[in-house]
């Protein structure tokens, strides 16, 4: 559960670091690259966070035996 926020912080820190270090000529390209990375991985990290939450709460201790358990809302 802690992994997801750690990854998000790491990615933002890396993005700020690399964009800050970039020369004027490459800044736009590097900003774009990191924007793509952040836009893609941010929602995935949210998914990982939810997965961690479910795991901590014990929702995976019992996995469904049949589809009825999944669709029986």
């Amino acid at each position, binding site marked *: 559960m802690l992994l997801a926020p750690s990854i998000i912080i790491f990615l933002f820190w890396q993005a700020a670091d690399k964009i800050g270090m970039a020369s004027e000529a490459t800044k736009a*390209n590097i900003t774009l690259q990191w924007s*793509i990375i952040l836009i*893609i991985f941010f929602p995935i990290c949210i998914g990982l966070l939810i997965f961690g939450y479910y795991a901590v709460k014990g929702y995976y201790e019992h996995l*469904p035996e049949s589809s*009825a358990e999944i669709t029986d809302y």
Partner: protein
Amino acid sequence: MTQNSSKGMGFIIGASSVGTLIEWYDFYIFGMLATIISKQFFPEDSGTSALLSTLAIFAAGFIVRPFGALVFGRLGDLIGRKYTFLLTLILMGGSTFAIGLVPGFKSIGWAAPILVLILRLVQGLALGGEYGGAATYVAEHAPAERRGYWTSWIQTTATLGLFLALGIIILIRQGQGVEKFSSEWGGWRYPFWISLLLVIVSIVIRMKMSESPMFAKVKSEGKTSVNPLKESFGHRANFKMVLVALFGAVMGQGVVWYTGQFYAQTFIENVCKVNFIDSRNILLIAILFATPFFVVFGTLSDRIGRKWIMLAGMALAIVTYRPIYQKFIDYTNPANRTGLLDVAKTTASNPVGTLDSKDKKKMLVTVKYDTAYTDGAVYTYTKVDTIHYQDDYSGTTASIGYILPGKNNPSILDTVLVKLKPAAGVVLADGITYAAVDKKSAKQGVVVEKSVDSSSFWKMVFLVFILILYVTMVYGPIAAFLVELFPTKIRYTSMSLPYHIGNGVFGGLVPFLGTLIVEFTKTKELPGGDPLAGLWYPIGIAALCLIIGSVYLQNKIDKEVMD
């Protein structure tokens, strides 16, 4: 056994696989021709073009795949599998053919890259909808005890699509020659046009297919989902299975697949500097021998379960990636050559000087050195010196010459009005004036291209075969695994999203992120960076997936997928 009444499993597999294979083929040819495409559709020497090409080539096609999964997955669960993947096939074929018709940047300007970008997005969307449909369709026809075996045939199509794309591109390139192949309306467009023919054949075949029996039954009973997206991701009971599928299986499978096939090719070509034909032949042969193992591991998964085969593939990849890629470097490192230098066959071409079209004070001097070894390897070094003329000398007419190593007399390249002073390596000799380039402004670049010896070639084929063997372990059983995880009425939607996030995003970004990580390791002391550093991304993702999968996945084979 659930079976199509009039046609056997062979027809069902064949009809589904041909379409899926063609979609993979369409998707791959864009990536394989990326260098030519970026030159044809983007302006030269423009910062903006670099931005657009980054978007178009590295990201767009992959990023939209999960959206395609949502759009077409929903359709598949609402109207049926057959018509949905017929639609994705038409979209993919149409957009691929259209890419081959878009005029270059020279003809229509910025409309060219914008059109290509839009068509590439359509390709990504279509692929996002195709795979889930085909895998679901086959799995819903297959007998329970052989579901892994039958769905593994669908899994072979991704690799065979790559094989087909590589083969066709190499054949056309060899037949036409590099220059003609790369011209605006040259042979690089043919693979896009060929797609139309392949798609028409596939559509005719798929039109003869009937709807999945399971979906037909659910539909006849009025039990289809009203809102597949909400039922797939809005309810915890199903959403938790989507998450465990993504983080415990598909995420690792995606990086192992792309590292084994695409990153391997990029690495052999760009880091090891193996030439175009050799690097592709290595991959082609390895694919040919490894592809049957998709079916082997698919069949095995019917007996011992899906989980541990997939996780074993990831574990092997984690442990052996770095040693295998190190071997690629070793086999192509001139310092490790066992063959002796073959002096008789080691040659240097005559230097060719080209005045820069925009900057008349700049000349590019190109010399090609073929360094031959007695074991058959030939390393070609194309050295380019950039000569910058000085402004601060009184002008005089002089001949620019270039002295090859070991030679006394310079080759005369051009006679121009120069204002130069001497520098190492490059001299001007005109018989009257002795001058050369300013040392500070002389820039040199060396492009290396290696034709590997027979022994190294086959060793590299074997190593790529091992990498693809891992791919077959993780990828062979995954369709059956995903199908068994979700109920019929929301299966298409539920399995497509994690599959395309895992493969399109985690896997598809392996070459891009791998290269980016190598860039981060570049320092003044190590200007080339650590060439193996890019492997930490797939290794890290596969390791995380291995841990999650080991703890949270079930190894049970769900025989009842009719529910």
